[in-house]
């Protein structure tokens, strides 16, 4: 995967670039807004990681220019903590995800994978989701596994829906909190694990092959890799 990273803080920038390269990504680092934009327009990247505050041109305006020129490369915006407007504004400007500093590399990697996958799959809205023998009807909100109907609480349903939409991908706890509960925060304890294990009981307990697995140090994955 080709990643363009635009980050002006040299220590943060080289750290992320180094980690991404070590993880097998092809990463280019730019430390200036204008150069970043030029590189983004010119190069053929799979995902862009852009810091919000940059010298030359700020991160959001890079996204804006890209979108106006018809470029749909997924963009993840990095922002400092406490900039509330950033998230709303960033997503409004055409950014696809946002991450507050500081973050863990596992978190960033998981999000990049999701963005990359989303960009390469078709964007038409499905009415059914299926992972192995687990099915979800988005219209009737019915969940079945091996034709056995499973009753879920509303939150469990949303949780499963998110996992099924990202089947085969690593989904971090922060991503679940953000998309299922709508909050971006850092839980002190295993609060998400409790919800996931409740869901797991319902979809996996009575069946032979477990679908929902824990990915150590990162999060969860539904279905095969």
């Amino acid at each position, binding site marked *: 995967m080709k990643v363009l990273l635009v980050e002006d803080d040299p220590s943060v920038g080289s750290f992320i670039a180094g980690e991404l390269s070590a993880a097998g990504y092809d990463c280019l680092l730019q430390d200036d807004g204008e150069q970043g934009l030029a590189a983004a327009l010119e190069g053929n990247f799979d995902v862009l990681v852009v810091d919000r505050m940059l010298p030359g041109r700020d991160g959001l305006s890079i996204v804006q220019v890209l979108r106006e020129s018809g470029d749909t490369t997924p963009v993840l915006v990095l922002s400092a903590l*406490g900039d509330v407007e950033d998230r709303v504004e960033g997503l409004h400007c055409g950014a696809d995800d946002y991450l507050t500093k500081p973050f863990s590399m596992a978190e960033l990697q998981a999000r990049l994978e999701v963005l990359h996958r989303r960009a390469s799959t078709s964007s038409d809205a499905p009415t059914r989701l299926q992972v192995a023998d687990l099915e979800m009807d988005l219209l009737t909100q019915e969940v079945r596994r091996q034709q056995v109907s499973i009753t879920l609480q509303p939150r469990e349903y949303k949780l499963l829906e998110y996992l099924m939409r990202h089947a085969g991908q690593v989904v971090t706890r922060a991503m679940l909190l953000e998309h299922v*509960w709508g909050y971006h925060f850092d*839980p*002190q304890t295993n609060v998400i694990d409790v919800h996931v294990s409740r869901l797991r009981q319902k979809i996996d307990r009575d069946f032979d092959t477990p679908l929902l697995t824990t990915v150590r*140090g990162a999060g969860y994955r539904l279905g095969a890799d």
Partner: protein
Amino acid sequence: MRVLQVINSLTFRFILRYVIALVVSVFAVLSLLYTYLSYGYFTGLTDSINDELDTLQLVYRGQGINGLRQYVGDQISAPAGASFSYLLTSPEGDKLGGDLPSTPRYREFTEGWLAFQESLLHRGETSDVDFIARSRRLDTGLNALVAYNFAAVSESGAVVFGTLLWAMIATLILGIIGGFFAASFAMQRLEDFSQRLSRIVRENPAERMPMKGEEGYLREMSLVTNRMLDQMSQLMQGIKLVSDNIAHDLRTPLTRIRNHLNQLRDGLEPERQEAVDRVIEDCDDLLATFNALLRISTLESGSRSAPETRVDLGGLLADVVELYEPLAIDKGVELNLDVAGEHSVRGDNDLLFQLFANLVDNAIKYTPAGGVIAVRVGAGEVAAGHRIVVADNGPGIPVTDRKNVFRRFYRLEASRGKEPGHGLGLSLVMAIAHYHRGTVQLASNRPGLKVIVELP
């Protein structure tokens, strides 16, 4: 209110004390002077009365009673010598001559001095006049009394005394008024000073006290304050830089170690993978701690303005409770939410969620099975703000530790090693509350802990 403030001010009290001391000392000096002058005057007076008695004696010896009468009559009628009055009486008490009535009622002083008041015909009017007098028994038993009328002197004395008294009162009143204005002025300047200072502390730590136009002690104070603020910001920056650098510089190698371990793990046989997994977990805990530390330090750096978006507290707390309910149920703890009325605050949705999530998380962690946790909003009126209470009936926090628990990495002895956590949860709570211009207080729930969060 303002008047009371000025009166209570140091400057006013100082000036008032000064004026009173001045008035008292001036009064004392003038009284001494007055005493000295009156003493001199009355000494001269008594001398002249004694002399006059001597003269009477001489006249009586030389010319007898008739000569004496003649002399007294001359003295009384002499236009220039009207100051003495006389009374001559026989040993039996009959009046023999002089211009005083025969039996004046007098007071007697030491050494035979007498004082009395007598009505005198003066320029066609009678008036009470003070006399000082002395009587002497002349050779044959004849009594002579010479009196001096000091009305004029005592009148001018009274005038002088009255003037002085009024001057004192005027000094006192003018001093108080002057003191009031001086104190009011000084206080105004001090108030400006303290307001500006508190604005610097509260809003913009980079601002400094203005030096232009100030003079005297206020300029001196501004100078020292600015120097102090400089030192403080240097220290703060130093600390922040050091902690940021430590967190950041350690994060890089730690992530590398973690990734190496991950690669190593895949090549190991399953029995040994577990040990590596535990090390990886420890690495993740450390990384989470660094991240939390960096978050707190970003929030505390105070460079950001307060958030502007409106957040519905009731909905947010309902979400927190909904998220934590399964955890509470697993632990056998009851988690209740009670929201009275609408509560909309200016803030950051995610940060506020973090704040209350940390509090509820802590409460669940420290409340034993069978306990109750209550999250309440709207209980108790807060001036122009919202009060959120998270109360549990767990072991609580001893009073002596309540301030410390907000410190980074501080953990109660009792929970150290027993409960998971990095000791930054409440520091983050405090940082978020401060970021929202709010406060966090700990109180006893009798038994248990009550955390009171107030948001503007």
